[in-house]
């Protein structure tokens, strides 16, 4: 019943093989060299170029299913923001993103960050904003209308940082950590497009600077927006997160690495899938040449 078509190998053996081979590099790292791609480099350089005090929106629009990819991306970028003295307004347009965002912020800014002195001036977490793309549009037009309180019940009016954030025009960079809808395309459609040219500090295109960290499977759909300079940098899946972490390790001795140790395992998984494809095709060719119908 569970025999795969082609070479006639039971698929459970494939599962076991993948599990074992992908697990070994986690326990015994291969330390394969990581090449930093253009997309990840641009996210780093764009963030690095912001002057201290710039306002960054960090939007946690992902759920538990994709934390392996999105969490390291968001964490590394927030760490970078913290090191540069950038001020962060964190939000979530996914209900599941609220608690996950809080957890990422705790990792970067420390346990009980919401009670620290820097909370309200350097960092604010508004939590979940309902309404998906409509919520995004409202936030871009007027964050005070989108959410009356932060994630912890403090009125927005009592948070000094929010006095300076009255619309998307006050945002210097939007970091979108996403694995679906609403995600980067909704930011482009409902925030960036509505506020084009409202901030003289933005690039010549007039678009609010937007960088995205996404699951690898979603990145191909972003390329038209990347080429139109609506997206200025992309962290492409786990590899993108690892590449960003590597840049932080080199520049800031980043210690919260989460994606880098998994890249060896990813390499083994990719090679194994190619081997499976080759074996499947050889089995299919043999069965076809022997007069069978093949798979």
């Amino acid at each position, binding site marked *: 019943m569970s025999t795969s078509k082609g070479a006639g190998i039971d698929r459970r053996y494939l599962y076991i093989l*993948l599990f074992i081979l992908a697990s070994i590099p986690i326990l015994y790292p291969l330390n394969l060299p990581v090449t930093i791609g253009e997309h990840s480099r641009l996210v780093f350089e764009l963030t690095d170029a912001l002057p201290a005090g710039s306002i960054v929106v960090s939007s946690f629009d992902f759920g538990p299913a994709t934390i392996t990819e999105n969490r390291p991306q968001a964490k590394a970028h927030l760490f970078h923001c913290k090191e540069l003295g950038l001020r962060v307004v964190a939000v979530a347009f996914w209900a599941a993103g609220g608690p996950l965002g809080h957890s990422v912020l705790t990792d970067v800014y420390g346990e009980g960050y919401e009670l620290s002195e820097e909370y309200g001036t350097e960092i604010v977490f508004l939590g979940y904003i309902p309404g998906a793309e409509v*919520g995004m549009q409202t936030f871009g037009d007027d964050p005070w209308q989108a959410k009356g309180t932060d994630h912890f*019940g403090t009125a927005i009016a009592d948070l000094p940082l929010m006095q300076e954030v009255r619309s998307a025009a006050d945002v210097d960079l939007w970091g979108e950590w996403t694995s679906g809808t609403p995600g980067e395309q909704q930011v482009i459609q409902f925030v960036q497009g509505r506020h084009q040219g409202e901030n003289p500090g933005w690039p010549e295109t007039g678009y609010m600077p937007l960088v995205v960290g996404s699951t690898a499977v979603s990145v191909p759909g972003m390329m038209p927006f990347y080429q139109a300079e609506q997206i200025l940098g992309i962290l492409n899946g786990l590899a993108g997160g690892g590449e960003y972490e590597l840049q932080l390790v080199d520049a800031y001795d980043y210690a919260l690495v989460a994606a880098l140790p998994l890249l060896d395992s990813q*390499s083994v998984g*990719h090679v194994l899938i190619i081997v499976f494809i080759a074996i499947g095709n050889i089995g299919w060719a043999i069965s076809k040449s022997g007069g069978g119908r093949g798979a």
Partner: protein
Amino acid sequence: MSLVIKRYIPLAITFIMGFTMVIATYFLAPDTPAREASTLLTATVDILVVTAGVLGLVALLRHHSVNISRRGRYWQYSIITIAGVVFYLIIGFYGVATHERYYMYASELFSWFYSDVYVHMDATIFSMLAFFIASAAYRAFRLRSVEASVLLIVGALMLLGRAPIGAVIWEGFPTIAQWLLDVPNAAGNRAITIGIAVGAISLAIRQLLGVERGYLGPER
């Protein structure tokens, strides 16, 4: 009267709200009082979301209660669903009632179930995709036609180009993967994106004018 409530009033609401937002988006300048009034309108989506949440909860409980009472398909799972919803509601409300400040993290138990149970279960289910993809790659990727061969070769190049081992084998793999993403993929995706956008605009116009009524349910 029934037709007025079921058809004409929803059609009128759709037209008025949709038309208002079109005017506000395309014809009103930012920072004008009229544009700010439209923002107030979108902010009221909270009311709809909360109402939908309550309706969803009632519908879920009703559906599974009926399934249990009729001993329907997999009724045992319905018991688990209802027990889970009721349990999570109780610890949520308990937390809100006993704490002053932390709304979402009102209760440690509430937080623990989310962070240490739900998050891991959901991540585990999604992780199983790796095994299905490996199995599917073995069974489905065949060099049976030119198109399938191109797909297979491009897939293999992307697999090697997007993992560190690709550059170890040959340093050209990441460059090829980047080019595939930036050029052929972007061209195809741009065509699809524009096609979807044109289709969405035409559908929106049909809905605004009341020509497309599928969202109102079947006409009886």
